[in-house]
């Protein structure tokens, strides 16, 4: 089964889960995610990603705290024609061609959040952190050649945001999240430092029971 098919099934399962788990103290969150690559990730693809989403479930353990889990998908891509120059000690290599670069990042995390204000407040700012893994696929295409690598990374994702109540059971959720995937394996271009990071700006809907 291809990765696309797997993701399709996983998406469908998570969709049902998030719809069916609306309990009293549960938040089911569906978000549209944009992402800006930073640091080494930006060296590979500097363009902002407009393609991404996440599913998330959070359970209130007290008035101010939730614990939960999330799954997301961010897609970064770019087309560039820059000359690639590889400088070794005695040999230089220059490569010119249309390059298509992709990064697919799948964060899967458990998380904890702290909410400011009363539970029924219209606006509830929060902050928190996720801890878990990123499955990151990098693909590089030039001419008829293609190379792809995938790695599981340990990751952390500190986040700030707010919930804005639209009704008693639905809130708008807006958050900014730093996705930080620690180095794992090699990049698609062979670098042993494969740290990946991006700042996500997420807008979604949070559903809860009455």
């Amino acid at each position, binding site marked *: 089964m291809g990765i696309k098919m797997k993701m399709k099934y996983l998406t469908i399962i998570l969709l049902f889960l998030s719809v069916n788990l609306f309990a009293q103290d549960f938040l089911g969150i569906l978000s549209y995610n944009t992402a800006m690559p930073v640091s080494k990730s930006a060296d590979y693809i500097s363009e902002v990603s407009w393609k991404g989403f996440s599913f998330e479930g959070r359970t209130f353990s007290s008035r101010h705290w939730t614990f939960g889990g999330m799954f997301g998908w961010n897609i970064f891509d770019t*087309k560039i024609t820059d000359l690639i120059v590889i400088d070794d000690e005695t040999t230089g290599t220059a490569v010119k061609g249309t390059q298509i670069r992709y990064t697919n990042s799948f964060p899967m995390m458990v998380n904890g959040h702290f909410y400011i204000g009363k539970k029924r407040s219209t606006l509830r700012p929060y902050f928190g952190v996720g801890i878990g893994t990123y499955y990151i696929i990098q693909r590089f295409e030039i*001419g008829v050649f293609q190379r792809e690598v995938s790695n599981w990374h340990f990751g952390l994702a500190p986040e700030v945001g707010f919930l804005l109540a639209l009704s008693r059971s639905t809130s708008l959720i807006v958050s900014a999240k730093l996705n930080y995937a620690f180095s794992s394996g090699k990049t698609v271009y062979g670098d042993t430092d494969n740290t990946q990071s991006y700042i996500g700006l997420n807008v979604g809907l949070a559903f809860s029971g009455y």
Partner: protein
Amino acid sequence: MKTNFLKKNKIWQKYLSILFLFILTINLTSCYTDYGLTSADYDVVVTQWDKTTDFDTLKTFSLVDSVFHITGDKDEPDSELLDRTYDRLIISTIRTNMKELGYAEIADPSDQNEPDVVVTIHALGTQIDQYYAGGYYPGWGYPGWGYGGYYPYYPGYVGKSTYYVGTLYIDYFDVDASDIPNDILVSPWYATINGLLNSGATESRLTNSINQAFDQSPYLKIN
């Protein structure tokens, strides 16, 4: 009043949720962007040079006046995947570039009138009709040539339909550094041009790619 409010609210929420799912679906249907690539977008020019060579000492050249096809059979000079329509264009474009870089051509080289550099041209046609899950692309590197350098690593193409790829190799042999009787040929610079065959705009793509190979090699220029 309360009931009406909730009722209205539920309808509103339902539509909002559907709208949101719709946006997400649209968002995901284009996970790999279609960049609408043309055949020229599949052309790749690779040049490699030996940094220890003092290119300034090389000032004259001779061009082997034909394009050798790499067929895997020394008795078969013509590849069935390549035609010779563009041989003259390839040779003349390379000659023009060498002259523009400041090299003087020695048209009839001899022991008494030896060029500093001999430029040779090889071509390889490859039919791709299966999956290559990695490793060396079959078009890269060919036996029988002792290079100082090496062709860069590229993984195999992953694809299923049949298509044809052409690779043009331009070699720049340093005559003094080579030991020709013993088959040791030193090539401090070479270019590899790779692209789809039979996919249109061949003349302009060949010319542009050859020019690009020299343009991205400014150290070849004679000062």
